[in-house]
């Protein structure tokens, strides 16, 4: 489904990605681990179109998406969250979901002026869908509160729900459980582990090895922008190269 080959990216002489390549199957949950500054988030940025890699190629569902802009990448089926939590906090929770649906009916200037009824109908249907998603995530009762009034954990949950709303085939989750309580952690774990049964896959950046082991089929260990090791969580953990990288 996803083929990444030889990605390279430097920031002012610092290597962020170096000949980074891997492949991913459908319905797979892939963990991405490594020390801080290993290039994990840079890889997410490159994959989601926020930065352009200097060389290399990304193929997704048979299409070369390397040079796509971010909105085109989302419409081809890749959606992401951020390590520094991003949401529109000054609008209600449900509006964040509605924004993620990517319909353009009510954004067309002609429709806005002359076909108010028609876009309002679509909006009603969307609201219904959004409430269902929020119910699934367990924050339906907060649907009409400002996103800012949610707890930090609920906000993280909401950002993942937004990815679900974007109807992505592949979710890129950057530290989805960092800094949240165990109860919320279990909720997020459940949502992620149910992704394959919905035909979706995910790449997860996370430092919590316990979480990675419970949820990931396969793990990639990165250091200095390079793939050091790849395999099941157990294999990677016992790889001498990984142990060496952490001991350094």
């Amino acid at each position, binding site marked *: 489904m996803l083929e990444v080959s030889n990605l390279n990216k430097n920031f002012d002489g610092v290597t962020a990605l170096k000949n980074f390549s891997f492949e991913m199957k459908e319905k797979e949950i892939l963990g991405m681990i490594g020390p801080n500054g290993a290039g994990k988030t840079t890889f997410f940025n490159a994959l*989601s179109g*926020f930065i352009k890699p200097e060389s290399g190629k990304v193929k997704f569902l048979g299409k070369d998406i390397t040079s796509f*802009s*971010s*909105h085109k*990448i*989302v*419409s081809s089926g890749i*959606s*992401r*969250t*951020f390590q*520094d*939590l*991003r*949401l*529109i*906090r*000054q*609008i209600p929770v449900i*509006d964040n979901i*509605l*924004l*993620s649906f*990517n*319909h353009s*009916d*009510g*954004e*067309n*200037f002609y429709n*806005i*002026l002359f076909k*108010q009824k028609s*876009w309002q109908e679509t*909006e009603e249907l969307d609201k219904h869908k959004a409430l269902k998603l929020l119910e699934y995530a367990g924050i339906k009762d907060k649907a009409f509160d400002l996103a*800012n009034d*949610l*707890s*930090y*954990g*609920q*906000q993280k949950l909401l950002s993942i729900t*937004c990815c679900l*709303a*974007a109807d992505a085939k592949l979710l890129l989750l950057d530290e989805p459980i960092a*800094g*949240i*309580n165990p109860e*919320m952690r279990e909720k997020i774990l459940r949502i992620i582990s149910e992704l394959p049964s919905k035909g979706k896959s995910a790449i997860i950046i996370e430092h919590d090895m316990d979480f990675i082991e419970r949820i990931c089929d396969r793990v990639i260990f990165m250091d200095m922008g390079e793939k050091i090791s790849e395999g099941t969580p157990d294999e990677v953990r016992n790889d001498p190269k990984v142990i060496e990288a952490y001991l350094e």
Partner: protein
Amino acid sequence: MNSPQTPLLKREGLLKLLFSLQEKRPGDEFLEYLLHILILICIYVILSLSLNLLVGYTGILSIAHAAFYGVGAYVAALMALRLETPFLLNIILAVIAAGVFGAVVGIPSLRLKDDYFVIATFAFQIIMFSVLNNLVEFTGGPLGLPGIPQPNIFGYEISTHIEFLILSLLLAGLVYWVSNRIVKSPFGRLLKSIREDEVFVKAVGRDISAAKVKVFIISASLASLAGVIYATYITYIDPTSFTVMESIFIISIVIIGGAANLKGSILGAAFLVALPELLRFIGLPNSIAANVRQILYGALLVIMMMWRPQGFLGEYAFGKSSEDRRQKLEDRSKRGNDA
């Protein structure tokens, strides 16, 4: 109370009032002066509503608004003077011309971030002024364009103050209607979201540049309507009416009235246009009043920025970068966190 005659009587009364306004009698000067102020307020309501879409709702500051205002005025004036085209056609042409300029300026410059975009619009504003000022054969240069014909709508000549006021009210109402529809639609939600966090909006798959260009064009087109009224009402235009200072005045209206609040723009326009007029009545000589006016605007803007950055009615505190506000909110929710 609800007798069937009442509306009729009311209408007759209104008609009488209208006729009495059309006849010139001594003592009417004050009324005309009042109507003049109201027409000016309508013009600035159009300008501030259209700019609010950009500054308030989308969070992008443009100081080229007077340039689009000028495009509207000059297109309407030149068409009427040179080609003698009908007024309604001139309105449409002015809107289209301003929209085209909006696209030409917006498409390249909206790629720039924050301050750089402001500088790009500043550049356009300066260029526009120079063109109007130096293209003497076409625009009359610094001498301007005198003798602009007053509007004629299907044979009905608009010439008195009251008629102009009705025309201005209609156009201001139209602009309010369009703006209101936009801000209440999903497109309005998209604009506000872009203001709050571009990165998130990008990540959920929105084409930010396209949305910004769209709103920029809409804003420019609506601003041109004010130009059309101004040109045909005053019947004389010259480049000094469309300078950077004018842009800044419109920005002040938006900020003081309240960014991201349409009613705020109406209130702001009424307040800032009427304020210097009130100065006349406290007996300041004209030469001093002009300076006092400038001081007042400046002081008001500073006071608002310090004490009430969201303006009278606004919801959005202008002046802080969206990234700052985002970071602050994130920190707050982390602190009051459930971990």
